[in-house]
């Protein structure tokens, strides 16, 4: 059928939109954003905060992301958490290339976003020199709330569909900058109150 041929050729863009296929596309984008799996790319201090975001107090599982797949073939979002050194840069690119489309990148922390406080020979000054970045999460390290804000921003972009179209046009990432949520703004539940 023509519709199937179109989908085979152009993917989702090939759906001739009627109210049924529109729904399907919405459903696909909705489920993509709700169940994206992260690739483990924890490098330094930010990795600890990324792990913290996955655990009980901050609970990434509510956003569908508690699973961090070690294999890039099964991952959707690569959260570059930490400083990228000269030796690590090719590894980063290789892991990014091994991820399957659709894939997105969150640059977590100032070291990944711009080199951070380490403006020297050893650190790549911004991971966007190597991979296209979709969301930059500032902080040193970003609090888990900031990371969740970054992830939710990305999920919103995925659900809107903006991000896929932009990627086709320019090849670059969405490059969204978010506000950092400082520590202490939210007060997690204390152990004693139970």
């Amino acid at each position, binding site marked *: 059928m023509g519709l199937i041929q179109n989908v085979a050729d152009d993917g989702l863009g090939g759906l001739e939109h009627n109210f049924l296929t529109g729904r399907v596309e919405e459903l696909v984008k909705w489920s993509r954003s709700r169940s994206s799996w992260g690739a483990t790319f924890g490098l330094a201090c930010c990795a600890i905060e990324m792990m913290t975001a996955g655990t009980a107090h901050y609970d990434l599982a509510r956003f569908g992301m508690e699973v961090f797949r070690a294999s890039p073939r099964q991952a959707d979002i690569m959260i570059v958490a930490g400083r990228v050194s*000269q*030796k690590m840069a090719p590894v980063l690119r290789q892991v990014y290339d091994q991820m399957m489309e659709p894939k997105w990148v969150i640059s977590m922390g100032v070291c990944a976003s711009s*080199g951070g406080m380490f*403006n*020297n*020979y*050893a650190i790549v*000054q911004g991971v966007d020199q190597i991979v296209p970045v979709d969301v930059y999460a500032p902080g040193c390290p970003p609090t888990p709330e900031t990371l969740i804000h970054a992830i939710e921003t990305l999920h919103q972009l995925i659900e809107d569909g903006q991000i896929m179209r932009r990627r086709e046009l320019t090849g670059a990432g969405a490059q969204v900058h978010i506000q950092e949520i400082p520590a202490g703004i939210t007060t997690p539940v204390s152990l004693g109150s139970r």
Partner: protein
Amino acid sequence: MSQSSNRVADDVRFVAKADYLKTLASLREEGFEMCVDLTAVDYLTHPGRNIAPEVLGDIALERFEVVVNLLSLSQRRRVRLRVQIAESDAVIGSAFDLYPGTEAMEREVFDMFGIKFDGHPDLTRILMPEDWQGHPLRKDYGIGNIPVQFKGAAS
């Protein structure tokens, strides 16, 4: 006030390169079982160092200095050796046979300063990529920073 190990002045000894391994061996006999740290300093831009001549003896100050910290677990004391290494002859004996724990430390000194260790089993770069040119912690190796570009900044 209480006794604190850091209150006592450090036992620092200047050792000639020719006597380095002998000194290490005799210190090991004396009871310094562990070599906790082996590093180097490049005194290119600060050659003077302000060391009393009687401490230095007849050892000439050179560009590089290899600093070895030994620890005696049984006697609870430390000793620090400072060995002068000339730039033209940047080789020194490896402490690996006496203290195998210096393997990684000597590799790091080689990587960062270019000082070679004679008798080391695997003297290759450890922190930088294997094909990196230059020795980053030398004083004539720039920090490699990118000038920050914003208005009003003094570069």
